[in-house]
């Protein structure tokens, strides 16, 4: 007992309840329960306050034991143990443990361990009940039409949320415990028969290879399992919406759930998945297609608008219509900086504002945005430090960068703007094209769990175009993405021969 206490550092949230059994008379002290007639047997229960469900412990463990032992007559320690395990405990999950490591794991997971003096094995009863958050509306991916639930920090709740969407025995979960100190539960979820077995095996082996002291968020795992360590494009998708994850699972992808974070990872993640929102599938396909094209356009604009402005106004003035050129020139009149410096200042100012707005306490947020709009938007133009066109460009870029349904890609694009701007300032449109080509070449070279990142565009897969840049009507979407799930490709077997659902 002392050994256990010492290992856990005498922390005061560990509760050890000692019971002596074997005395003939009942003791009046409530903390000691005596059972039996002959020898005395010390018995103790260990659990951690806060992690375990106190009601379960008192109702199903202590209460039962007190009642049962009053009647029990056996004196043999082993028999008592067996008796306790089989008859007394009215908790669902009861197991034996043999060593100290398992004991600590169980206690720290919120289970209650019962030890009997003279017996080498202990009994674990499942009494887990961590304090968790209620299921709320997703805060990062909101939709107008669609389910309003999001994942929480508890792994079990999250798996249950997915199970509720996919009620198939083929939805399999493989568990891992990662982190030498934190011992974080990680669950890998996939639909057996749809997901590619090779990718599943790859994911599991990559998870097993992780050697770290602690996992506090799924971002840790994301960093460990992604293919390329150098790319700034996200190759692992994450979402806090159960419906998104369920949809991806049905496409043959694999979800990685990590205890302690509402963000669930999905692999393999393609470039297109960052530009697709859950809502696309809930709306009319025509509108979704329009919105998707808008997003692709927005991505390009968010990436290139400032660099194009810099390139055109400093190298290729002949590309602008005369009236527009004169109008821009009149605004640039008296601006002390070259266009590129102006653009860099404004973009940096915007990034700073954005970061400040994010980290501020909610109540100060509006103040930041007011100062931002007033100072940057108006005063800077009026003072003649920046031109009005530049403010428009920055605002356009900013709005376009909010167009992404997935936050990960937005950050990448935000960052890539700056090198492009510098290239534009040095080489004009040629530089912008050069930069874009580098980005596209890089994108083509990335693979995520063996799947080309840019598919279905590079390599071009005609069948998968139905759900890429545009979205075809539901009844035409008969196949799953070809490169991801290679075995069970067909969504509606019944209609596959007629190529259309009715």
């Amino acid at each position, binding site marked *: 007992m002392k050994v256990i206490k010492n290992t856990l550092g005498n922390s005061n949230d560990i509760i050890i309840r000692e019971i002596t059994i074997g005395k003939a008379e009942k003791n009046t002290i409530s903390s000691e329960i005596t059972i039996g007639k002959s020898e005395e047997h010390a018995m103790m229960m260990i659990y951690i306050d806060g992690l375990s469900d106190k009601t379960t412990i008192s109702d199903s463990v202590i209460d039962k034991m007190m009642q049962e032992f009053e009647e029990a007559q056996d004196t043999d320690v082993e028999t008592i143990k067996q008796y306790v395990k089989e008859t007394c405990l009215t908790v669902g999950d009861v197991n034996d443990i043999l060593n100290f490591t398992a004991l600590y794991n169980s206690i720290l997971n919120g289970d209650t361990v019962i030890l009997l003096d003279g017996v080498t094995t202990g009994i674990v009863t499942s009494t887990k009940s961590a304090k968790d958050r209620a299921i709320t509306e997703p805060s990062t991916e909101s939709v107008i039409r669609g389910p309003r639930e999001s994942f929480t920090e508890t792994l079990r709740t999250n798996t249950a949320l997915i199970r509720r969407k996919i009620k198939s025995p083929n939805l399999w979960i493989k568990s891992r415990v990662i982190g030498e100190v934190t011992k974080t539960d990680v669950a890998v979820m996939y639909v057996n028969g749809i997901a590619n077995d090779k990718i599943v095996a790859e994911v599991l082996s990559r998870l097993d290879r992780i050697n770290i002291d602690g996992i506090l968020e799924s971002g840790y795992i994301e960093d460990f399992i992604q293919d390329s360590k150098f790319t700034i494009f996200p190759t692992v998708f994450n979402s806090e919406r159960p419906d998104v994850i369920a949809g991806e699972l049905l496409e043959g992808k694999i979800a990685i759930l990590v205890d302690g974070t509402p963000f669930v990872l999905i692999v393999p993640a393609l470039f297109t998945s960052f530009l697709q929102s859950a809502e696309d599938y809930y709306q009319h396909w025509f509108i979704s297609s329009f919105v998707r094209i808008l997003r692709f356009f927005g991505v390009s604009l968010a990436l290139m608008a400032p660099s194009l402005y810099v390139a055109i*106004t*400093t190298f290729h*003035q002949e590309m602008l219509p*005369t009236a527009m*050129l*004169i*109008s821009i*020139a*009149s605004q640039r009149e008296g601006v002390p900086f070259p266009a590129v410096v102006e653009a860099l200042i404004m973009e940096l100012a915007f990034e700073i504002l954005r970061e400040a707005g994010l980290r501020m306490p909610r109540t100060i947020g509006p103040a930041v945005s007011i100062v931002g709009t007033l100072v940057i938007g108006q005063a800077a133009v009026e003072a003649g430090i920046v031109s009005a066109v530049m403010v428009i460009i920055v605002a356009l870029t900013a709005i376009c960068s909010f167009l992404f349904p997935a936050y990960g890609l937005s950050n990448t694009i935000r960052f890539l703007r700056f090198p492009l701007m510098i290239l534009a300032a040095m080489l004009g449109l040629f530089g912008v094209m050069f930069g874009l080509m580098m980005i596209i070449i890089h994108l083509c070279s990335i693979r995520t769990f063996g799947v080309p990142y840019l598919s279905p565009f590079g390599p071009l897969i005609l069948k998968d175009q139905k759900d890429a840049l545009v979205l075809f009507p539901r009844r035409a979407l008969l196949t799953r993405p070809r490169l991801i799930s290679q075995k069970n490709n067909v969504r509606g077997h019944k209609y596959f021969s007629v190529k259309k659902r009715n």
Partner: protein
Amino acid sequence: MSKIKTICLLLIVTIFLSGCWSKRELNELAIVSALGIDKVDDEFEVTVQIVVPGEISSKAPTSGRSPVTTNYAKGKTIFEAIRKMTTLSTRKIYFAHTQVVIIGEELAKEGISEALDLISRDHEFRNDFNVIIAHEATAKEVLNILTPIEKVPANKMINSLNTSEKAWGSTISINIDELVSTLSSPETSPILSAIEIKGDATLGMGATNVDKVKTPVVLKYAGLAVFKEDKYIGLLTEEESKSVSFLSDKIQSTIEIIACPKGGTLATEITKSKTKIKGKFENGTPKIDVRIDVEQNVGEVECTINLTSHKSIDYVNKKTEEVIQQQIEKTISTVQQTYRADIFGFGEELHRTDPKKWKKIKDDWPTIFQELPVNVEVHVKTKGLGTMQNSLLNKKKKE
């Protein structure tokens, strides 16, 4: 690995090597809206009209200063003159947005080929600006006149050139590419629109010119200038210019006035016109057939005519055909007799019809052109009467 790194490094270095050589900030440029070329004492005088961006902006102008400024320089070649201008101008002169090039009358009479070489050769010039000539004025004078409504006079010149081409037909917008290709063809002679100054040229320079309700000095298109080879030889009247537009199939819309049977006039609006020129050789003598299909609406009736009857529509059709035909024939004979320059491209058409026979007459073309028989055929269809049928004059008579 080190090899790859070296290659990457070299690649990156090449990017930086090219450096910022052609970087020009917008506020370091003097945007030229119009370029004028004159000949003064064997030297070219180049005038550029430079936009002052601060005065053009949609925000209230900071001062009442002129929205454009002109710079001049003289030189043995145009290029020299342009470079000399840097001693005068505060910024680098930027020609990519030149909208119009004006050639002074003196220079036009001596020949425009030399002057056009630079502006069609230099890469900074676009090839979509128009070329016009100044009639009875120098290009410098034309460029010095401020115009109302349009702050940049070059815009005014382009806009009125285009609108009158679209709605009236007495001007033809010729851009530098067309001009150069016509100049280089041996058969055809070029035509250019000519602009003239109405009023005292020296008065048009100040802001006072645009302050008044009735602008004292205006720029007006006078008609089409006829060139023989590259020399300016004469100006066509408005009527003649319109006929030239008909012949070169550039009429989009115009007005024709015909006489009514019982006196008075009727104006028709031509909405569509298609011209076909066919050349042929009859026993070795060249002949030209011109067929013009015209669609028109009745535009204005100032006489008593019952437009609801078929007969009068036929009359209108026939009369319009006659009017157009007469005008065109008259114009052709004027050009043949007075100017002796093939501005219609008849030679080219004959060349296309029969290259072998053309070769025989090629050398005598200037003389043959003067006597060339041209058969003009006009077909007119009246499509609409406007928003009313008979004129008010009709009703009054009946009462």
